[in-house]
C-alpha cells in the first residue's frame, strides 16, 4: 500500500507538471490554492474530528496580510506568503486556545463566531479597503529571479507551495503525532487515560491547520492580485466544508479532488448562470446520499474490496 501511494503521488505530480499545457494556468493555480485550503481543513476534521466553521478567517486573513505587505510595503511574494502564514498561525493559536475547550457543535459555533469577528474587523479597518478589498497587488519576482508576471512561471511557484503544504500534511498524518490525533478522534477519554495531553495535541493540530489554510489564502491573493471580503466571509468556511465532503473526508487526496470539482463547477458552469448553485446543491445531495465517503473515499473502498 505504501508503495502504491507513492506511485499515485508521482503520477499526480507528473500530471500537474504538464497540466498547464492543456488547461489555463490561472485556473489551475486557483484549484491548487483551494486544494491546499481544503487539505488543511481536512487535517482538522478528518484526522482530529473537529469541525471548524471558521476557517475563512485564516484563509482570508492571510490573503489580506500578504496582499498588503506585497502591495504597500513592497515585500517580495515569498515573504508575503510567509507573513500571511505566520499571521494565520498566530490567529489560529488565539482562536484555538478559545475553541478547543469545546466539542462538536459548540466548537463549530465558537469558530464561526470568531470568524465573524475577523470578518467585521476586515470590513471596518482602513488597510483592507472595505468592500473594495486590496486591489492591484503587484506580481514581483520570487526570490528575485523567477518572473511571476508570466502566468506559467507563477504556476510552478504555486505548485511548489502546494507540494510543500501537502507534504507537511502528509508527514503530520503519518507521524506518531498524527497517530495520537487519530486516537483522539476515535476515543478521546481513552487518549486522556493513556496520559496524552489531549488539549495540546488538538491545539497544535489547529494551529497547523490554520497556518496551512493561511498559506493557501496568501498564495491565492498573489495569484489574483487581490484580497477581498469573499475570502473571509462565512460562505468561504462553508465552501471548504463542501469541498472536503465531496472529495472525501479523512482521505489525504480527497479534499484536493473535492476542491478541483467545486472550483471547476464554479468556473465552467458560470454560463449556466442561476443554475450553478442548484447544480452544486444537487451534487452535494448526491454525494451525501450515494457516496457517503466522498469521491476518493469511495474509490479507496472499492479498491480495498476488490483486493480483499
Amino acid at each position, binding site marked *: 500500500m505504501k508503495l502504491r501511494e507513492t506511485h499515485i503521488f508521482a503520477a499526480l505530480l507528473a500530471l500537474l507538471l504538464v497540466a498547464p499545457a492543456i488547461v489555463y494556468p490561472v485556473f489551475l493555480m*486557483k484549484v491548487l490554492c483551494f486544494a491546499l485550503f481544503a487539505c488543511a481543513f481536512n487535517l482538522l476534521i478528518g484526522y482530529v474530528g473537529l469541525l471548524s466553521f471558521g476557517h475563512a478567517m485564516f484563509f482570508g486573513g492571510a490573503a489580506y496580510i500578504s496582499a498588503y505587505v506585497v502591495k504597500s510595503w513592497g515585500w517580495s511574494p515569498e515573504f508575503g506568503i510567509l507573513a500571511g502564514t505566520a499571521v494565520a498561525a498566530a490567529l489560529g493559536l488565539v482562536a484555538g486556545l478559545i475553541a478547543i475547550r469545546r466539542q462538536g457543535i459548540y466548537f463549530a459555533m465558537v469558530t464561526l463566531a470568531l470568524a465573524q469577528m475577523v470578518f467585521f474587523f476586515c470590513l471596518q479597518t482602513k488597510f483592507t479597503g472595505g468592500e473594495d*478589498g486590496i*486591489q492591484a497587488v503587484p506580481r514581483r519576482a520570487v526570490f528575485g529571479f523567477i518572473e511571476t508576471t508570466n502566468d506559467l512561471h507563477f504556476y510552478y511557484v504555486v505548485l511548489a507551495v502546494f507540494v510543500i503544504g501537502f507534504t507537511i500534511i502528509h508527514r503530520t498524518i503519518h507521524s506518531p503525532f498524527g497517530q495520537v490525533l487519530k486516537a483522539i478522534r476515535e476515543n478521546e477519554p481513552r487518549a486522556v487515560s493513556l496520559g496524552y495531553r489531549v488539549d495540546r495535541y488538538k491545539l497544535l493540530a489547529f494551529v497547523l491547520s490554520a497556518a496551512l489554510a493561511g498559506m493557501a489564502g496568501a498564495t491565492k491573493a498573489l495569484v489574483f*492580485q487581490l484580497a477581498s*471580503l469573499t475570502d473571509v466571509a462565512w460562505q468561504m468556511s462553508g465552501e471548504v466544508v463542501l469541498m472536503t465532503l465531496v472529495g472525501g473526508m479523512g482521505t489525504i487526496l480527497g479534499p484536493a479532488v473535492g476542491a478541483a470539482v467545486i472550483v471547476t463547477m464554479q468556473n465552467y458552469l*458560470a454560463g449556466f*448562470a442561476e443554475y450553478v448553485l442548484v447544480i452544486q446543491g444537487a451534487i452535494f445531495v448526491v454525494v451525501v446520499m450515494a457516496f457517503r465517503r466522498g469521491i476518493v473515499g469511495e474509490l479507496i473502498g472499492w479498491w480495498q474490496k476488490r483486493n480483499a
Partner: protein
Amino acid sequence: MQIKTLFATTAIVLAAGAAQAQVSDGVIKLGVLNDQSGLYADVSGPGGTWAARKAVADSGIEKRGFKVEVVFGDHQNKPDIGSNIARQWYDVDKVDAIVDVPTSSVALAINQITKEKNKVFIGSGPATSDLTGPACSPNTAHWTYDTWALANGTGKAIVQTGGKSWYFVTADYAFGHALERDTGNVVKANGGTVVGAVRHPFPGTDFSSFLLQAQASKAQIVAFANAGGDTINSIKQAAEFGIVEGGQKLAGMLMFITDVHSLGLKTAQGLNFTTAWYWDANDNNRAFAKEFAAANGGKMPTMVHAGIYSGVIHYLKAVEALKSDADGVKVVDKMKEMPSDDKLFGKGTLRKDGRHVHDMYLVEVKKPGESKYAWDYLTVKKTIPAAEAFRPMAEGNCPLVK
C-alpha cells in the same frame, strides 16, 4: 432565463459577408460579465447580455463586413471568480472588450486586468467613482452612473426642492461612510443641514432602532446611505413605522427601478433618487423597453441595461472608425475623441478620465393611485444637466488628467 438561451452556446455569431482581416482574429468579441443569478441579476444579469446583442444588431456593423460575437459570464459578485473569467477571456478566448460588471470590488479588479492586457472595459454596472478617480485607467470607460453622481444629484436636487434638514441611516463600512460624507457635503453646500446620522451594521436585517431615531430627529429627509438588500429592508421597515405618512421623505442613494418593483409602490411611494435613464421618459426609451420586456419575461430595463446598449454602440463606432480592435488604449482614445450619440442616452461625451457624461434625472416614486399601467413607477422631477451631473475632472485625482 429561457431554456433555449441556456443551452445555446454562449455566442451568437452572425455570419458576415466578408470578414474583415483588420480586427484581431477577424472578430470583435464582447464579453458581458455580470451577476447572472444573485443580488444584482435583475439590475443587469441576463438582460445585460440582451442589451449588448441588441446594440450589436442596431449598430448595423455586421452589414458592413465586421463580425461581432457576444459572450457572457457570471462573476457571482466575487472578485476572484470575475478576475479568473476575465483573464481567461482575454488570454484564451480572445475577448476584446468586457462590458457591464456590477459590484465595485469586481469592477476594480477587471479595471486592473484590462489595463494590464491592453483591452477595453466599458463599465455600466459599477458604482464606485474610484474608477474615474485614483484607479482610473486609459482602457476604461465608466458609462452609466457613479456614487458621486448619485449622491450629488439626489442631495442637491432635494435641497433645492425644499428638503433642507437631513438625517442619515448609514451602512457602517467604507462605502456607506463615503456616501454619507459626499451627500452631506452637497447638502450643506446648497444651504441644507444634516441634523444627525446613525450607523447600522452591514449587512443589516433589523433597522427598527435606527429608523426610530431617524423618525425622532424630525428631519425632513431620511436618507439611506446603503445599498442592495440593506436599502430594500430599510425602506420596507420605514413603511411599517409610517415614516412617510408622518411627513418625512425618504431618499435612497443607490436605487434601481427593479428595487421599486420588488418593494411595490405602496412601500416605496414618495422615495426620491437619481437615475441615469428611465424607460418611460420618451418614445425611443419606450420602444426599447417594449422589446426588452418581450425578451426578458416582462421586466423593464434598468439604467444599467440602457448604459450597456449605449456603451456598446459607441465602442463599435470607435472600432469601425479605427478599423481595428487590437489596441485597447487606442480604441478608448477614439471613443473619447468622438462624441457619443445613440437613441437611449442621446448626445454625450467620454471624458479624459474615462467618465461618460450625460444628463441625470431626479425621480420620485409615484403613489399607488397615480400609477396607470405596469411599471409606471416614477415621475421625473428634475433633469440634472450633464455639466453638473458628474464630478469635475480636477477633483477626482485621476492620474490621467494631470
